[in-house]
């Protein structure tokens, strides 16, 4: 009986292909939206999670100026220099300090060239970032002190300039400055904003200051705290030291900022889940509208097939059997829409994950729930038309033209 009802449902759906397709479009769109959004959301959460885990220990980033939206107010805040970094390194709660001075420069090797972010920093940068070398070596202390012309390439830069070749020992020109390649970083993939973290060249910070920028400034300082230190304690200690060094009076505001990278990533994943929630609400409305579409077309179908229902009742179908037949048809219709929607949503999420450079993270639970909800839509919105069919008077139904 169930098998026969399923077969009948498929026959009825295939007979009106275009109509069936338009009927389930609402469910398709609703399910596809949920699947695509949740999958992309999970992917970017996984991304954020991974970057949090990569950081390893508590890392604070100290920058000059307040972190605020809008145009800068008043005098620009004074920059940091290497003495600030040295002072931070003296703090007993600090494990590692990596000052950074960044710029965007063309990098050339033979005929190949690229424009990339160049970070002037120290050997400790790789420790703070928990970023192992893929090949070669880190900066040596003597190179940092002398401002030697050496560099470490990110994977994207290495691939652009050297392809499959071995870059160690080769010379690249960073805005005209010849640097020997001493190391290559491991691949890290996309960051929290989807930026390519491997599109990067590291050089000693003194090389940056003297040979490229011609100043003594430090753009930002990454501070890795000892594992036993709470990040709140770390932030307070760092703030106190910097206020003292920058001679900020009591009552005056900071002219620098201290950010915990973990807080930042937690915030990002919070934004992601709010977005997923909003889009799920939109998808729920779409499913509701899709369900009403199914109810509408099932009512038309019941009216069109009045005579068929009369015949079925005459040969001995019970109310329950007729009800089941039309209910199954509605459920098959909506589940079909759900399956198409799941496929479409996963395809969209897959495309989106490539475009946003985040992991493709399909969730079996979400797919199962989408499937369940589409079946539920069929039951809820198919019940009323099916009951109308089951309650027909066989004599009237047989007389219907």
């Amino acid at each position, binding site marked *: *009986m169930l*098998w*026969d009802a399923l077969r009948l449902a498929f*026959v009825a759906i295939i*007979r009106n292909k275009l109509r069936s397709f338009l009927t389930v479009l609402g469910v398709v769109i609703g399910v596809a939206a949920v699947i695509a959004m949740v999958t992309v959301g999970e992917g970017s959460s996984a991304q954020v999670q991974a970057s949090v885990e990569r950081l390893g220990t508590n890392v604070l980033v100290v920058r000059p100026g307040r972190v605020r939206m809008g145009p800068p107010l008043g005098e620009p805040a004074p920059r940091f220099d290497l003495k600030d970094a040295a002072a931070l390194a003296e703090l007993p709660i600090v494990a590692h300090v990596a000052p950074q001075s960044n710029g965007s420069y063309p990098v050339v090797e033979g005929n190949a060239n690229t424009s990339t972010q160049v970070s002037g920093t120290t050997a400790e940068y790789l420790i703070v970032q928990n970023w192992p070398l893929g090949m070669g070596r880190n900066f040596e202390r003597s190179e940092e002190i002398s401002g030697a012309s050496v560099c470490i390439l990110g994977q994207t830069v290495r691939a652009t300039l050297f392809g499959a070749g071995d870059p160690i020992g080769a010379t690249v020109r960073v805005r005209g400055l010849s640097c020997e390649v001493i190391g290559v970083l491991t691949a890290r993939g996309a960051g929290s904003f989807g930026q390519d973290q491997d599109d990067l060249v590291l050089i000693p910070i003194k090389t940056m200051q003297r040979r490229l920028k011609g100043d003594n400034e430090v753009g930002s300082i990454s501070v890795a705290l000892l594992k036993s230190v709470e990040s709140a304690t770390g932030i307070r200690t760092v703030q106190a030291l910097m206020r003292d060094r920058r001679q900020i009076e009591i009552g005056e505001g900071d002219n620098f900022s201290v950010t915990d990278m973990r807080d930042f990533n937690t915030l990002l994943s919070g934004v992601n889940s709010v977005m997923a929630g909003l889009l799920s609400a939109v998808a729920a409305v779409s499913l509701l509208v899709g369900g009403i579409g199914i109810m509408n077309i099932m009512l038309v179908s019941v009216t069109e097939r009045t*005579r*068929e229902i*009369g*015949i*079925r*009742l*005459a*040969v*001995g*179908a*019970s*109310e*329950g*059997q007729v009800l089941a037949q039309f209910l199954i048809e509605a459920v098959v219709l909506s589940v079909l829409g759900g399956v198409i929607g799941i496929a479409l949503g996963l395809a969209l999420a897959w495309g989106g994950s490539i475009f946003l450079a985040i992991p493709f993270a399909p969730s079996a639970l979400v797919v199962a729930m989408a499937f369940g909800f589409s079946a539920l839509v069929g039951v809820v919105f198919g019940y009323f038309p099916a009951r109308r069919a089951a309650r027909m008077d*066989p*004599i009237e139904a*047989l007389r219907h033209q």
Partner: protein
Amino acid sequence: MAAPLIAFRNVSRVYGSGEAEVRALADVSFQIAAGEFVAIMGPSGSGKSTAMNIIGCLDRPTFGEYLFKGIAVQGLGQDARALLRRHALGFVFQGFNLLPRQSALENVELPLIYKGMPGPERRARAREALRKVGLEGREGHDPSQLSGGQQQRVAIARALAGQPTVILADEPTGNLDSARGQEIMQLLQALNRQEGITIVMVTHEDDIARHAKRLMVFTDGRLTRDTAVGERV
């Protein structure tokens, strides 16, 4: 004497109420025994279709009693009457009433599906029924690919497949030419004689009614004549 198969006891069927009240059947009593072949005649509006609907458990009397195999049908709900139709009754209609776009075999299987018969047994039974009505080899044809006479045979096979006690035929030859009509009547006679199936048939053609053994005539909602066929009044 065993209980009659079909017994009407002072059956009335009233539609509407008050001014608009229509009395389709008025105080009708009769009995039909197992194995009979009854033709019901009468002008339109005489109540013969209403009587057929009540016999077929599609409708219930407003007053009076209708006993089918001793069961008081007037007290039964929709589902209980569906069970009676499923297990004891077969219908043949003037307009054939086959399901379009389903093969002859699938049409004949229909009542068996509702009996919950498993697929292989169901198909074997349906093939056997089609063979009995002379449609061997047409199992896969759609109704639209069959002539009127063949479609009516499929409908008879469908009624037959459920192994009914009674076949109710409502103007079974009304849409057929007289040669096809005669063939259908011979088929029904054969089923009546060989399978012992009771047949109740509504018709308005004397030629067709002649094939029955008993003739009932309705006029204005009353049974006005009830004689053996060929008997003169």
